[in-house]
């Protein structure tokens, strides 16, 4: 089953064009409105790194639970994880924009602020970047190891590499749980350094899993429309939908639990976060966030028929892609740009990153047989039916 993907020139040109749009948008943005551009930079970086991390989590879960159904598609999450090295470089470049987005990097602010002084052993620039380096090193090394095992398995076969992958997935999942929680706290929660929420890390992680599993399903559907994955059947689609449905409910639960406890507790230092997100456009975004990321997927994907039909899945997935953007916009903008500005700059930078991400996923998919060989559960995946 040597079935390698080849990228059409049209796809390559499209991704280059999108990357070009992104570069131009950033260049113009830095000239005219640097602060807003850095906010865009942070948003897009976080958006795509959360997809890569969610995909890594998805792949690890498949190994740990010894899932049979997904064995055919494991190259797709692997390809998404290959974006991590790019993200690492981008997050290091964020150094130059620290002052535009993170309030706690300003010495004159910290020197007058008792709470920020108290937090400064954790929230300071050198330690911040030390964490970024350590996290990305751990993620990249572990994902490279897993990818190497996965490719070795194609050549050698047998159970050895599957068992090794399972063991390393267990390590990976613990590393991810701790590091990505701290990472989301660093990147998003510390935008408002006085505010804190213990739910925040869980919610951000679930958002990553939710959107990554929907993107995995989208890539599989697109590839199957190109004639790849001829053995994709309704049961596989139903399982992808289950991931989207499940993580959407967990995300909704975390989001609601975070809001309700803060609303009920009514402690000023906690509610301050929501008070200025409760005016004007942000109030619309607050409800749109819940409806897009939980309400619509929950209702649309509930019936058995729609949960196994591409016709229903594709619109929901596209909506979820907008949903992740909405959530990050709602988190980042009130803390950095303050005014709810949305224009060509936002669209252009997002398209640039989307182009880069598609290019990375596409080229990584071409590097190995699209359907893995010698995976112990491959036959079960092909026969999958319920």
């Amino acid at each position, binding site marked *: 089953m040597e079935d390698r993907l080849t990228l059409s020139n049209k796809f390559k040109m499209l991704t280059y064009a999108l990357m070009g749009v992104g570069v131009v948008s950033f260049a113009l943005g830095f000239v005219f409105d640097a602060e807003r551009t850095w906010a865009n930079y942070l948003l897009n970086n976080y958006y795509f790194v959360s997809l890569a991390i969610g995909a890594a989590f998805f792949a690890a879960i498949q190994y740990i639970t010894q899932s049979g159904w997904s064995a055919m598609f494991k190259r797709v999450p692997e390809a998404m994880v290959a974006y991590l090295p790019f993200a690492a470089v981008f997050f290091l470049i964020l150094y130059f924009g620290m002052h535009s987005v993170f309030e706690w990097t300003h010495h004159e602010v910290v020197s007058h602020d008792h709470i920020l002084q108290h937090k400064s052993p954790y929230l300071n620039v050198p330690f911040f970047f030390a964490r970024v380096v350590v996290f990305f090193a751990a993620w990249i090394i572990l994902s490279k190891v897993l990818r190497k095992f996965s490719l070795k398995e194609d050549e050698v076969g047998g159970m050895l590499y599957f068992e090794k992958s399972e063991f390393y997935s267990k390590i990976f999942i613990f590393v991810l749980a701790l590091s990505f929680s701290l990472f989301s706290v660093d990147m998003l929660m510390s935008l408002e350094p006085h505010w804190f929420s213990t739910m925040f890390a869980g919610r951000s992680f679930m958002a990553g899993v939710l959107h990554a599993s929907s993107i995995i399903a989208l890539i599989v559907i697109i590839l199957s429309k190109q004639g790849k994955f001829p053995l994709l059947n309704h049961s596989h689609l139903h399982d992808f939908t289950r991931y989207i449905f499940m993580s959407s409910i967990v995300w909704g639960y975390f989001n609601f639990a975070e809001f*309700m406890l803060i609303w009920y507790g009514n402690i000023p230092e906690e509610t301050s976060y929501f008070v200025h997100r409760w005016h004007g456009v942000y109030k619309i975004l607050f409800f749109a966030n819940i409806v897009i990321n939980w309400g619509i997927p929950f209702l649309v994907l509930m019936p058995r028929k729609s949960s196994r039909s591409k016709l229903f899945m594709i619109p929901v997935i596209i909506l979820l892609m907008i949903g992740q953007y909405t959530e990050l916009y709602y988190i980042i903008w009130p803390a950095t740009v303050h005014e709810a500005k949305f224009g060509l700059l936002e669209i252009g930078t997002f398209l640039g990153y989307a182009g880069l991400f598609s290019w990375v996923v596409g080229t990584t998919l071409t590097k190995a047989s699209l359907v893995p060989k010698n995976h112990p559960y491959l036959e079960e995946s092909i026969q999958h039916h319920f």
Partner: protein
Amino acid sequence: MSKKYILGVFDDEATLVDAFEKLKDKGVMPVEVYTPYPVHEILEGMPIKTRITHAAFFYGLFAALGILGFLTYAASISWPLHYGGKPFNAFPSFIVVTIVATILAITLLTLFTFSARAKIFPGKKAEIFHEQATDDKFVMVFDEAGIANDSESVKSILTEHGKIE
């Protein structure tokens, strides 16, 4: 029991499904199939489709609306009380109660609906077609009156794969 039935008893899933497919091609449908575990071919092949999922959805919808409505009515119209500086209509705090009570309502209502449709009630004497149907055998039940025209061919297919009792 006044009706007469033909039972096909099978030892494993493969022979059962084989016989089922052959009979289906002939246009003969069993009244009921008893299996130790769900068999997909039978589930999808049987002409009766369950509508209990739709019933459960609407129970859930109406239960959620009803409970939310009741809480809002009780807290803000019938007996408004100040507590903790909250508005009378403390909407976010109603949601947890609504979720839990909706699950209870769906469970009970679906259970009652199912029992009523399947004519099951506590203390009812069980209708057992075959002693081992509750054990490890696969049993297909045919209404003899319904297949009177080609009962011979049905019997031959059944004996080919299993046995008739």
